[in-house]
């Protein structure tokens, strides 16, 4: 492998982690040369002024092993512990209800590798006390003879079952079909770009059974276009990773997401990665803001009595807002086989941060801190 600059532990680990190894391609086609075990913990806490809201702790374990030269197996299992307070509508503190939940999730994937192609099949399962999700997926990729371009295809199907404890509905279903088409292109020895298009069509129960007056369409069609560009600067030995996602759906939510990361290797096996993310979205066409009917008061929207069966939702996630994330990741390659990393991100969501139109007024800002610590072991 061509290693232009001597770099001690990070270079060794980089070489070990680079899956195709000798001859890198636009996307990995060869099975991993070594098995990889990931152990990770995610801690999430969000708040709005005057109220600590949801706290999530997620330990997870991931394993990826090469099998018989032409196959690989991946498996991930995680456990979410969710607790805190969730507003019954909008961001009203007085309406917040206490909640505790657990979610266990697992998925497996088996991949067959050829010289310039892969085919994989995967299954995912997750379970909460009121929500069970099962999903199957098929993925394929094909590279050109020079390995500079890789085409990717994906097909997924999820079958979710919803059984809320308040029995607002019983044994509801949501079925979703996902499609992915992608192309990854090597542009120069230091530039690689990727374009992905995903399309999802879902039918079934989308309402939030725990939010007053929440009634959503029984169908959602979502399309996202993601463009990513990684550029390596040979001078500082750093890599810039940029991304832009445009999203639209049948509920009239349109969003744009910009992401940027700067991966800076340092001496002694350390790597620093500062990151930024900006997100902006329009409101769903059935979202109603915190302006209430003068007669009925909170949480009834204006004119509620004239059309009680209409689609509507006070869920702030369907409002018009902008959001920003600032993050920093610190990683340390201990030796050729072990890497530890720590990442902290601060996230804030506000109506007035929306671009391209007015944001929803009157909602409390949402702030969150996300921390992750991980250990990667190769064997």
């Amino acid at each position: 492998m061509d290693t232009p600059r001597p770099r001690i532990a990070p270079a060794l680990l980089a070489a070990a982690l680079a899956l195709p190894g000798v001859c890198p391609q636009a996307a990995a086609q060869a099975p991993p040369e070594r098995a990889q075990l990931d152990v990770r913990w995610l801690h999430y806490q969000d708040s709005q002024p005057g109220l600590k809201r949801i706290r999530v702790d997620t330990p997870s374990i991931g394993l990826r092993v090469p099998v018989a030269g032409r196959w690989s197996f991946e498996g991930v299992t995680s456990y979410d512990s969710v607790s805190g307070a969730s507003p019954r509508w909008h961001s009203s503190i007085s309406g917040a209800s206490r909640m505790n939940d657990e979610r266990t999730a697992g998925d497996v994937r088996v991949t067959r590798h050829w010289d310039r192609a892969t085919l994989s099949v995967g299954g995912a399962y997750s379970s909460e006390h009121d929500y069970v999700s099962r999903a199957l997926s098929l993925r394929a990729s094909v590279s050109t003879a020079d390995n500079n371009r890789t085409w990717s295809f994906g097909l997924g199907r999820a079958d979710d079952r919803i059984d809320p404890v308040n029995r607002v509905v019983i044994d509801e279903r949501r079925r979703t079909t996902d499609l992915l088409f992608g192309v990854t292109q090597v542009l120069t020895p230091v530039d690689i770009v990727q374009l992905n298009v995903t399309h999802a069509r879902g039918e079934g129960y989308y309402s939030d059974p725990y939010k007053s007056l929440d009634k959503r369409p029984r169908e959602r069609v979502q399309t996202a276009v993601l463009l990513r560009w990684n550029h390596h600067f040979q001078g500082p030995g750093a890599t810039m990773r940029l991304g832009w996602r445009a999203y639209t759906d049948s509920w009239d939510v349109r969003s744009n997401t910009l992401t940027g990361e700067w991966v800076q290797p340092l001496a002694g096996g350390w790597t620093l990665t500062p990151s930024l993310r900006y997100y902006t979205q329009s409101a769903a066409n059935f979202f109603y803001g915190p302006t209430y009917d003068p007669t009925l008061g909170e949480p009834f929207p204006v004119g509620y009595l004239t059309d009680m069966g209409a689609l509507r939702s006070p869920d702030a996630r369907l409002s018009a807002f902008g959001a920003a994330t600032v993050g920093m990741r610190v990683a340390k390659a201990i030796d050729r086989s072990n890497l530890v990393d720590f990442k902290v991100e601060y996230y804030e969501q506000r109506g007035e941060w929306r671009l391209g139109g007015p944001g929803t007024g009157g909602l409390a800002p949402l702030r969150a801190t996300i921390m992750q610590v991980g250990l990667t072991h190769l064997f």
Partner: protein
Amino acid sequence: MTARLLLLLAIGSGGTGCSGPVAVQAWEKGELARPEMRFDAGSLESRMSEQVYPSKEGSSGGTGVGGGGCGCN
């Protein structure tokens, strides 16, 4: 940023007129082998990050298919 990206794409494909980027040879791909140059680098880490945003925002998609759903409230 989008403009810069489009500019790079234009430059990348401009090297050979309309026929796409100049083919990068196998021996020129040392930097591309770095894990941070891959789009699936840190897969478990990126999966966990990607799990957070769809539960707090109104959009999802762009990276994969067949993920498990949740009743994230």
